[in-house]
């Protein structure tokens, strides 16, 4: 462990932050999914993809230290995490599009829908920041090239 921590550089901590971001996104997904009358039609998929993505991001943090950020295993793990997070985001947006359009037009006094909207925004924001972080770290290398 000590050896692992010794090898962990700034990239590791960025990846840990990514895990936290994705986890917060997932928790907020659960919160927005629980707003009365605003459960997602495909909530089970969203929950599953979200948590698998969090695990993959965590795994990516590990493989980054273990094999390097440009290793193909890290590439596969983190790209899969990215896709799964985006699918979770897709589920959120596809479902909430109606709510958002309604709020922006005729339903702007619906406080419950606003609750659903705000929690959705937080969830999606954290998920997207996590995705951007994954993309950014994909352009970075934690090992000097041979």
């Amino acid at each position, binding site marked *: 462990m000590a050896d692992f921590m010794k090898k962990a550089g700034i990239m590791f901590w960025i990846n840990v932050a990514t895990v936290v971001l994705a986890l917060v996104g997932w928790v907020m997904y659960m919160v927005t999914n629980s707003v009365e009358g605003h459960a997602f039609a495909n909530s089970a998929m969203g929950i599953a993809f979200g948590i698998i993505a969090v695990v993959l991001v965590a795994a990516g943090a590990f493989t980054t230290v273990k094999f390097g950020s440009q290793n*193909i295993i890290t590439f596969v793990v983190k790209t899969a995490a990215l896709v799964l997070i*985006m699918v979770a985001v*897709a589920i959120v947006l596809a479902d909430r*599009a109606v709510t958002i359009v*309604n709020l922006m037009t005729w*339903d702007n006094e619906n406080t419950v829908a606003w609750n659903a909207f705000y929690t959705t925004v937080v969830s999606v924001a954290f998920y997207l920041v996590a995705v951007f972080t994954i993309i950014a770290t*994909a352009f970075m290398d934690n090992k000097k090239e041979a």
Partner: protein
Amino acid sequence: MIRKLWNGLANLFAFLLVLSIVAGNVLEANRAQVDIFFGTQSSETIWVEDPVEEGEEEEEETGLKNLNQYSTFLPNEEYLNADGTGNSRALIKDAIDIGRRHNSEGSVLLKNNGALPLAKGANTKVTLLGTYAYNTIVNSSMGQKSQGGIISLRNALGGTATDFATENVGANASGADFQFADLKLNGNGVAAGAGFTVNPNFTGNYSGVGQNKGASNTYTVGEKDPSTLTAEFTGSFRNYNDAAIVVLGRGSGESNDYLKGGLNNNEKAEGITEPLELTPNEIALLDLAKDNFDKVIVLLNTNSAIEVGDLKYDNEIDAILWIGHPGNYGTLGVADILCGNVSPSGGLYDIYATYNLSTPAMQNMGKYNFVNGSEITRSKSKTYVMENESIYVGYRYYETRYYDAIYNQGGAKSTVGTFASNGAWDYAAEVAYGFGYGMSYTTFDYKMYGNITFETPSEHEIYAKVQVEVTNTGDVAGRTPVQIYGQAPYTQYDKDHLVEKAAIQLLGFDKTDIIQPGESEVVAVKIDMQNFASYDNTYKNPDNTYGSYILDAGNYYFAVGNGAHDALNNVLALQGKKVADGMDYEGKADAARLWNYEYTENNGVDATTFGVAKTGEQIENQIPYIDWNFFSGTKIPHLTRNDWEGTYPEADYALTAPADMIEYLDGAIPVGEGAKGEFYTIKTNDNVSNIKWDDTTTNITYTQMGFASWDDPRWDSLLNQLNLAEATTFASLAGPSFTALTGAGFVADKGGLTDNAGNGIVFKLNAGKDKNQPWAVTTGEDANWNGQVFGSAPLVASSFDRDLMYQIGDFVGNEAIFLGLPIVWGPGLNTHRHAYNGRNGEYYSEDPVLAGYCALDFAVAARRKGLIASPKHFVFNDQESNRQGVAPFMTEQRAREIELRAYQICMEAVDYDGYGMIGLMTSFSKVGPTEVTNSWGMLTGILQEEWGFTGYAVTDISDDKDLYTGMVYAGCTGYDLRFGQPTSTSDFASKIGGQAQTVTGKITLSTDMFAGDATMQQIIRRSIKRSLWCFAQSNLMNRSAVTIDVANDPTGDTGRPDVDYVPGHNETIEHEVIWRVMYKSAIGVTAGLAGVAALLYVASCFKKKEVK
């Protein structure tokens, strides 16, 4: 280095790929709206001709007739070119003419000391003043908007041609301009425009001013401070001083109300806090006008009663003209009145009180949360509004109290409810302008003509024929409304049973033709005596149920007058009352008639005649839970004229929902309990063997059912052919798109068959739903013209012109044919409970008879052109505040005689032999503590069984999706799912929400959920029959070759091309429209780039290894 690049790009493009897929899904799920936005047609229902076998085209002897595609409903001849293509120029020109008539017929002259009319022509030099003179509100901020080019007030008064390129709202999309000289009123009347010389400095002073076109809780009038007007402008007044035309405006729109004390803080001043009061800047503007002009003319650009009592008595204000929100072209009608092209002939749609707060309804309006809201589970069930003013809405309150004050009864002279009176309640102080009142440039004398005659076609129908002789006693030709009012006896029985009677109520109306000076016209008005009956919810029926319409024995009065107050004074005159008795002026006894109803049975209470509906259904209480006092807990009195002082509503009741009410609020009352129940528990083991599905022994398509009667036995065969899963999906949807019913030959429509408007069809000509029609306008100068152009609903009401009401329906029906659209969610038909309702601009009036006939004439004309009008919002959308689920409480009498009567007139359609409205949109609000969407008593008991409604009934947008089974059971035919529609049985559950509620809790939706429930299967069959029955009478039939029932053909079979019939079938095809191409391209490009980047990344990995 390169590996990092490919890694990063692979991730980036993967991100963009998923984003593109998301965008595609969202666009496809909401394609109907997306198509309207882009003007595209992403899918299309086409007609595929089948091979004709010899002899097959022979028509049968059954009264049925075969028609080819695009033959069932044709546009009016004047809207077609010789080759059958659409003449959009003629269409738009007619729209301008009708828009002009909205205001030439509907504007109401409230005051005129001789200043009007102004002389037509350039020699009349006028100055416009005010924010709303420059930026006139033409229509609502939401709900009933205007689109495209408009004719501004300054243009109508001083221009010579339209200027659509620079004068427009929403979108610059009205095509080429018209010369005013070519725009003739009614096609052959005077040319448009007043031709005045308008002070040109006005424009520079007001250019850029804001326009607050929607009501809001803290409303900003936004009138520009007149002290900031430039010296150049004020200095030019002397050169344009024939008149100052000052415009005062207030907005209207969806989602918000005006609230008590809700004037923006920046505009409040001492004693000025209300949004409909004149603000300091408005008062200063009027002072500026009075100081600089001999003639000051005030235009009221509003649908909410601005408090103009002070102006009424201000001698320096020479004229007041109410103009509503005039739509795109109505300013031409305003110009007609100002310059004397026409004599004004409108009557006020609502009463204009001196202070709006004086009406009982205003004591409780706005946002109220149950004190114990935390004990209520359902989030949409925590708000309420107490409407315990009983039937005394609008003029019914002021006129009845006036009458009782004259007779000194019921404590009418007490000080309760006084706002403008000095001491005892005083009508003259409390009311500025009465309901139905309006001036003319001439004068008219009205008197009853001949005897009132009665027609009784059945035991439960009585129609009175009232004739009025109208004489033009002035020196200008003009029209005038003929408003017939009535007074029913208020008996001891009524007092004992809390049956309320207004001292005067509108019973019917019509309008004269143009009457020349000195000439007379006799106008006959048919009165449905049902509208004279009163609902007694305490009456015990022979079968021990309660509730009936009653007619008391006694004296009934019919009267004509210039508004309700004038008619009441005429009744009083016939009763022998004079000014000495307290009247504000002498009435005319010859303008009223007495009819004594002799009924000696049942202690003089006739509960037989109208105790049974025209359908034969016995009347009984259907919605007792609408009364707060139905439940346990604190009782709240309803206003009664027997005790004005003791029952005038307290302000702002803070209410705690009792436990038995919370069961309703939370949706826990099953069928069979309580008041018939609203929520439904699905059964699983009924015997359903006698209900047929998937029957292949017959082969009837809905296109063979054109104009088929509701009782046509072929419907049963058609329903037997359906598939239960498809039927269940279809029964969840009522627009804009519809799923397939394969057994009926109904193909899925994903492009949208509904429109949400009322003052015209809301999308552009080039966004039509069927661009293959011979008259389709897809290109050219008018392709972007948007049909949503007409003025506010109160303008229609104030015209009292049933010909105009019909003409609007006919025109919108023609628009719908041009656009291939069979259903419109309009017109608005809710009641103006008070002036603060933010959406008053979309609803006609405070009076249900006036509103009902406005909507009826519109709907019948539209239906004859194949457009199904579906008035909204059934019912009790009495305010916008908390509209999502607000619980209104009132008596069932009030509900039936005020809000519901307007709809009843439309559905029963006695003026058209029952050919009335066959569409409906329900309300967001509740009936008492129960959702309208789930009220069996409302949607089946009253609507279907009492009124005989067999049409289509859609919920408001996405309303109560958590209550699916109850919604279907109660009698809606589906949800309005404007966004996120199911497109097939496979996504039925996910789009409806998968969370429908029953008394036992949440259930998971599926298309076989009713497989063991005989009741629901029958209800679904009826629901589908209702929708298909409507479609079979609509212009949707234009898309197919059809078979029609000639006996029920409403078109008169005119203008149809004489070509050989070719049978076929409908198919749906998809088009690669621009937005679809864009998202598919994005998916393709990003997928390719992501793949390439990933491959290069992998390759770079291997390349590096080789180097090692």
